[in-house]
């Protein structure tokens, strides 16, 4: 076994330790430890990705002496390694970009806990990506939930407290349904490792046994994870939580945490049940319908918003809808589109939130749309990054968002006429609505305020903020222009995923 193959497990376990250590270090020390560790995990995940690409296979990693079904296992393939690298890099850049706000928004004695939560969140994201076991997924979903609630809460204000409470309650509801699903599934199959469950489930379906429990289990998994990833109509917690947190938290929550749960859902659909069963249970129709509604409702709500960060949060609701539309197309191309959107959104939305933080800096701490007039002139790099993000959200070629639309359209063209019509109509209207609220903001950014407010204020570029934004812009453009490679890797990864 090559050393590289140990990296996934190392990233999970030692991220936990990094979090524990950060809790006892002072603020600056915790920051250095966390950032250094995140850089290391990005490098390690990149090495794993290269390994899986060159050996062109996925490997199983026994967590201990005993393999499946007695012990725990990790499953590492191209898709998982790609997601891990991307998530780790995005978290690093999000932390870098919002570093000043972290130190300004959190109480000085609790800044180190911020980095603890980030490290634990990273660990749980890695675990959700790599795990091959349902119960491990549940344990790390718990860590994910609590850590992300803490990330919102660390910015101490009345608004974040109420938002966190709502987020926690709804998230625990989702976890509860997920756990009920796991428990019931264990009750009728007796297995917890995904492949073992898959065998038993196929046998049960073939024999026609336990049909009601199986349907209900699929429902529990879908609803539980949909609540946690803010699918319409379970999205009401998202605008408050993401809109009131510190910019780094909003970036991480929007870009990464939501996607972690969707990856678990994709795993369950692909490896436990298999696409044929999912199709026959009509689950994908509901996901498609709710995805389309999410695209529309999210954008319509964003149009009404006057607060920049809440507007970006509603935009996230719409973008999560794209992912569910891709899943709901229940074809291989649809899943490819969903994974592409996971990556594209993870690259774009954190950048937008970091820019929002930068705009707040040059607008006296205000974040409503009227206050950030002219912020693009006062903060050129932030304005450029926001423009890139806005064009990407609209789906202009050369940017990441266009690749998503392309792949979704390809997936839709394979489906039946009704699905095709609905998907295309939703894509068109959603692009339109995106343009309607992003373009005016971009113009607003570059218009000098009439009353000359904050005229002489200029953004003081700390290297962290500038480096993060530059990296985000480069990644976005790179993804938009070099998507061939990524889409090919995703296809290969998905082919291995189902084995």
């Amino acid at each position, binding site marked *: 076994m090559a050393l590289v193959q140990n990296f996934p497990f190392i990233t999970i376990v030692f991220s936990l330790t990094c979090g524990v250590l950060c809790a006892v270090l002072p603020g600056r020390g915790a920051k250095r430890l966390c950032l250094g560790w995140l850089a290391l995990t990005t490098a390690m995940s990149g090495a794993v990705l290269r390994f899986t690409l060159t050996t062109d296979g996925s490997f199983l990693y026994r967590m201990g002496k005993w393999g499946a079904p007695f012990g725990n296992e990790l499953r590492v393939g191209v898709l998982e390694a790609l997601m891990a690298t991307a998530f780790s890099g995005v978290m690093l850049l999000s932390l870098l970009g919002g570093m000043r706000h972290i130190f300004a928004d959190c109480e000085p004695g609790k800044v180190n806990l911020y980095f603890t939560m980030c490290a634990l969140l990273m660990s749980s994201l890695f675990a959700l990506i790599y795990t091959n076991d349902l119960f491990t997924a549940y344990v790390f979903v718990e860590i994910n939930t609590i850590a992300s609630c803490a990330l919102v809460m660390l910015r101490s204000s009345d608004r974040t407290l109420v938002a966190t409470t709502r987020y926690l309650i709804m998230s625990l509801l989702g976890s509860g349904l997920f756990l009920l699903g796991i428990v019931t599934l264990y009750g009728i199959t007796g297995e917890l490792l995904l492949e073992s469950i898959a065998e038993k489930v196929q046998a049960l379906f073939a024999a026609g046994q336990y049909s009601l429990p199986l349907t209900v289990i699929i429902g529990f998994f879908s609803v539980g994870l949909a609540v946690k990833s803010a699918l319409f109509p379970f999205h009401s917690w998202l605008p408050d939580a993401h809109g009131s947190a510190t910019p780094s938290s909003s970036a991480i929550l929007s870009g990464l945490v939501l996607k972690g749960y969707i990856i678990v859902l994709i795993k369950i659909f692909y490896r436990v049940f298999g696409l044929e069963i999912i199709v026959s249970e009509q689950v994908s129709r509901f996901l498609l319908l709710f995805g389309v509604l999410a695209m529309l409702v999210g954008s319509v709500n964003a149009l009404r918003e006057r607060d920049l960060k809440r507007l970006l949060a509603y935009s996230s609701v719409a973008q999560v809808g794209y992912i569910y539309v891709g899943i709901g197309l229940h074809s291989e191309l649809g899943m490819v589109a969903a994974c592409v959107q996971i990556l594209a959104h993870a690259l774009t939305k954190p950048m937008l939130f970091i820019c929002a933080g930068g705009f707040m800096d040059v607008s006296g701490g205000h974040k409503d749309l009227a206050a950030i007039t002219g912020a693009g002139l006062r903060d050129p790099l932030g304005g450029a990054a926001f423009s890139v993000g806005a*064009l990407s959200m*609209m789906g*202009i*070629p*050369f940017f990441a968002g*266009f*690749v998503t*639309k*392309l792949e979704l*359209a*390809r997936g839709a*063209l394979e489906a039946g*006429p009704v699905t*095709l019509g609905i998907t*295309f109509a939703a*894509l*068109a*209207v959603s*692009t*339109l609505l995106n*343009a*309607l609220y992003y*373009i*005016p903001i971009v*113009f607003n950014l570059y*218009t000098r305020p009439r009353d000359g407010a904050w005229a002489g204020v200029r953004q003081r570029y700390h290297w962290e903020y500038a480096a993060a934004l530059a990296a985000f812009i480069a990644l976005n453009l790179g993804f*938009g*222009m070099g*998507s*061939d490679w990524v*889409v090919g890797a995703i296809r290969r990864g998905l082919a291995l995923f189902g084995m």
Partner: protein
Amino acid sequence: MGFLLLLPILFPLAAALALCLRPLRAQRRRRAFTVAALALELGLTALCAALAGGTLPLLPLAEGLCVTFGIDGLGRIFSLLVAFMWLLSGVFTQEYMADREHLGRYHVFLFLTEGALMCLCLAANYLTLYLGFELMTLCSLPLALHTQTGPARRGGYKYLFYSVFGACLGLLGFYTVHTYGRGTAFAPGGVLDPAKVAGHEGFVAAAAFLAVVGFGAKAGLFPLHAWLPAAHPEAPAGASALLSGVITKGGVLCVIRVVYYQFGAAFLRGTWVQYAWLALALVTVLLGSMLAYQEKLFKKRLAYSTVSQAAYILFGLALLQPTAFAGAILHVVVHSAIKDGLFFTAGAVIEKTGQTDVRALRGVGRAMPFTMGCYTVLSLGLIGIPPLGGFASKWLLAEGSLASGIPVFGWLGPAVLLVSALLTAGYLFPITVSAFLPGADLDGTSAPPLEPGPWITLPLAVLTALTVLTGLFPGPLADAAAAIAAALC
């Protein structure tokens, strides 16, 4: 000589960047720079049209999708048109907007839009066309809402809304061609693969129709025409001229490329798509003329006139017939020249007199004889009086319509065109009449001379001369258009 194709596209972008980095505050420097840059762009375009050939794949975006540029007869005509009109509008703007604010920003986006339009004209596949279309919308939006008043912003966002929606519909066409065709590069006669299309004709036809409607939104095809009357009155006259005269032709070019070079005239001939398109075009012709007739705001009247005249072009294209195609191309050039001239006139008159209502322009002919004289000639051209430009194009359109053999529209088309010509006279002529012959009660001798300076009158003169010339010698242009049409229909 592939890299020659990039010159007309990159040069305006470089000029915009230069203006961004070093904003020229001094009026003389800015004027000199702008005019020199636009003239150089015209020269580069002519060079490219004369010498360039082949295609230039520039940026591969995904497998099978590459941003590619190329030039053919159609591209030559449109790119030269764009460069020429841009030069004239640039000259006009120097004096027209001499005392307005934010001129630097205006000029930057002027150059950017020109670059985007060149990208559109020199596109060699659907992806590049779509890219140019989107960029054109985004870059021209700041021109449309330049004054940033409430109505200007509303008009601008309406423009954005309709254009982006049109682009989405066009994108649907792109996906369809990509899936059911042999690639998305432009080939005369279409790229659809009969084997793949078999069984899906209904869907492909629907996608073609939606793409036509979507790209036609830029040209003001009913029902997506409402942005024109909203955006034009608020934009500065130079920008209105470009929006009406040139950017609408960008939409027309997209429609031509999609119909003739991607789906193929043979696929669409005789289908419900053609009939629906013809119907929409004729409805727009009548609708635009009638709305212009009863409109009292000068610039809004000209905007409705654009809606109507652009529909002429789309009608000619919908006939899928060589003569009509030639007439459509001719009308593209002629209408562009005439409408630009009319907007220049309107801008000059509104600027000098401060009146936006046509009923208040009595006697202005005495104060601005040259301007109104040009206006008269241009209106005659638009109405279609021989030997001016509009006559040749409308004649070819009518001839093509009658020769096409399409059941109802064959004779309905010319009838509608005739009615519309009468309405055009009805909304353009009264202005001339009341300007020069205000009535006995108005004392014309004491009118102060309001004639604008040479920066405005020179472009006007050029456009008027162009109208007359295309009327007297339509041959070269019509022959070039017919040559293109022969390969397509």
